[in-house]
């Protein structure tokens, strides 16, 4: 029963209908691993040869890049069971893995029936067993879902592999820009908007169905909200001057963004239903890059009212703002963690921009990346990782770092610049 509900959720997730295919997929390269990861074996699924995607390989890659697991290379396997009853636990004990996942793929009906089981090698018992019926084009997402199930069972935290990311690409020379939505591992990229003018600041609605972003399509900035499934677009703001940095309220009914129509950049809240605009900040300096707290109560933003760009916090209803960042001479672009306890930001030290996390209770700021041109951090919906933009070989690429800074990876693209990743929330 639970599995059936999950399949229904998967079907919903797969309805990305209007989008066009993007040219280049991203390839993940793990640049810094972690010790103490859980040893596990994901055995190639039986009958998978006829299926378009290798489920075990996808699950293995997901678990590996989380940094929490150390999947054993298939070349070391002694045997290749495809169901729980075939597992020779002695073999797996000798390979020193704690858990082994087995499964099978059978063609039938309109697609495939996928079964999988997770076993505890030392207890010799079954930990999980699932069966799914999916269409061929859902196999890849199902593999991410299986990785999520294993991740949650063995770490106690919800997985975030069957999620998506949005990002901006810029063709060499700035000739064209695109807003792309892809799986969290960079596969299945779908272009949802292409423009000859810059596209900026994508932000997911809390239900993961819409993206707010900034366009310059009419050579003036505008904030647009686009339904990711239907492609329907609505211009939210096209005031004189800046229309920038949209962020969603957790209720999905309001946006906060930056306008300079009153003379200098200030942050406003906008009610999507009623269209009312409420000004939240008042200073003669730059106020921008609002991030709405997950509990809805406050807004953290970037301001240079103290001389250098720093983070400030103000009630979501407006009022006085309190400075919250103090380390270094440049702290900007806050992004809330899903639990609301911290914000990721870009922080400059020694002329290098790095991704850092600021604990809002203790005000401790911890730098996670080595730095250079690191920017635009975004938390995974389970809070385990932060995806961000950086440069490799003079080109913009995406990278991810675990919140403890121990696991780092780069998502390489084939051409152009990739920037401004936004990790989608869990789809409800």
């Amino acid at each position, binding site marked *: 029963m639970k599995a059936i509900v999950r399949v229904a959720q998967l079907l919903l997730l797969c309805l990305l209908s209007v989008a066009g295919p993007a040219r280049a997929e991203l390839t993940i390269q793990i640049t810094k691993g972690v010790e103490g990861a859980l040893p596990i074996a994901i055995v190639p699924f039986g009958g998978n040869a006829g299926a378009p995607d290798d489920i075990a390989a996808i699950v293995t890659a997901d678990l590996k890049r989380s940094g929490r697991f150390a999947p054993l290379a298939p070349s070391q396997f002694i045997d290749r069971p495809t169901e729980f009853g075939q597992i020779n636990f002695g073999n797996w004990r000798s390979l020193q893995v704690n858990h082994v996942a087995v499964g099978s793929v059978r063609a039938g009906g309109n697609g495939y029936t996928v079964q999988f089981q997770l076993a505890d090698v030392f207890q010799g018992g079954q930990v999980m067993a699932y069966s799914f019926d999916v269409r061929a084009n859902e196999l890849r997402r199902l593999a991410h879902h299986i990785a999520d199930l294993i991740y949650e069972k063995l770490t106690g935290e919800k997985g975030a592999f069957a999620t998506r990311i949005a990002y901006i690409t810029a063709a060499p020379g700035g000739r064209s820009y695109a807003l792309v939505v892809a799986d969290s591992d960079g596969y299945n990229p779908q272009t949802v908007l292409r423009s000859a003018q810059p596209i900026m600041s994508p932000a997911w609605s809390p239900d993961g169905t819409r993206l707010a972003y900034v366009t310059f399509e009419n050579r003036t900035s505008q904030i647009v909200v686009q339904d990711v499934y239907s492609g329907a677009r609505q211009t939210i703001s096209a005031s004189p001057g800046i229309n920038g940095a949209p962020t969603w309220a957790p209720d999905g009914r309001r946006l906060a963004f930056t306008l300079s129509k009153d003379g200098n950049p200030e942050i406003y809240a906008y009610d999507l239903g009623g269209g009312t605009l409420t000004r939240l900040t008042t200073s003669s300096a730059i106020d921008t*890059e609002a991030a709405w707290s997950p509990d809805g109560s406050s807004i953290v933003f970037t301001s240079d009212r103290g001389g250098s760009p720093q983070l400030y916090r103000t009630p979501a209803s407006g009022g006085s703002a309190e400075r919250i960042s103090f380390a270094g001479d440049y702290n900007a672009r806050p992004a809330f963690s899903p639990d609301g306890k911290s914000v990721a930001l870009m922080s400059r030290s020694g002329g290098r921009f790095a991704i850092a996390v600021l604990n809002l209770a203790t005000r401790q700021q911890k730098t996670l990346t080595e730095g250079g041109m690191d*920017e635009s951090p975004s938390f995974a919906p389970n809070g385990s990782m932060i995806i961000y933009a950086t440069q490799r070989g003079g080109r913009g690429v995406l990278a991810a770092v675990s919140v403890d800074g121990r696991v780092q990876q780069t998502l390489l693209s084939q051409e152009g610049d990739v920037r401004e990743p936004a990790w989608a929330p869990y789809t409800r």
Partner: protein
Amino acid sequence: MNTLLKSLLIASSLALFAGCSSSGGTAGDGSADGAAGASTYGAGRGSAFGGGAGGTGAGGAAGPAGGYVGGPGASEAQRVVYFDFDSSDIRADSRPVIEAHAQYLVQNPGAAVVLEGHTDERGSREYNIALGERRSTAVRRVMETLGVKSQQMRNVSYGKERPAVAGHDEAAYSQNRRVEIAY
């Protein structure tokens, strides 16, 4: 109908600019911009900067001393105001560029410009949008003191999204910290 009229106006102004500039590419970019902002004067302003004068310096509106040329006939170099790092102060060497365009705009009250602010690549994207706007506003203020009407100017900031020069060193950065005056 409206779209057709607009297309004709854009086409005619493009044709006029092509006749008045030695660098067709950049003039084309500038004119398309201007047409989008205020297409209604597109057909009438050609005479303001002379028939068929060749490119920079020679043609265009009569500029201030020093050979600076304002108006849509100005060369690309004479349509850009550069800034120091982390600054929106107008440098002394930029004054003649602004003055030349201000003179053109005062003499041609039907003309309009877009002041496009840009930054180098350092720092966050939206904060750079704000910095770029600071620069375009600084140019606008100087223009206003020189008599240009507010409604002749529109500000837009591209931040670091549209660098003039690729590259990740000060040589590139100094070319990217700029305001482009686009007709």
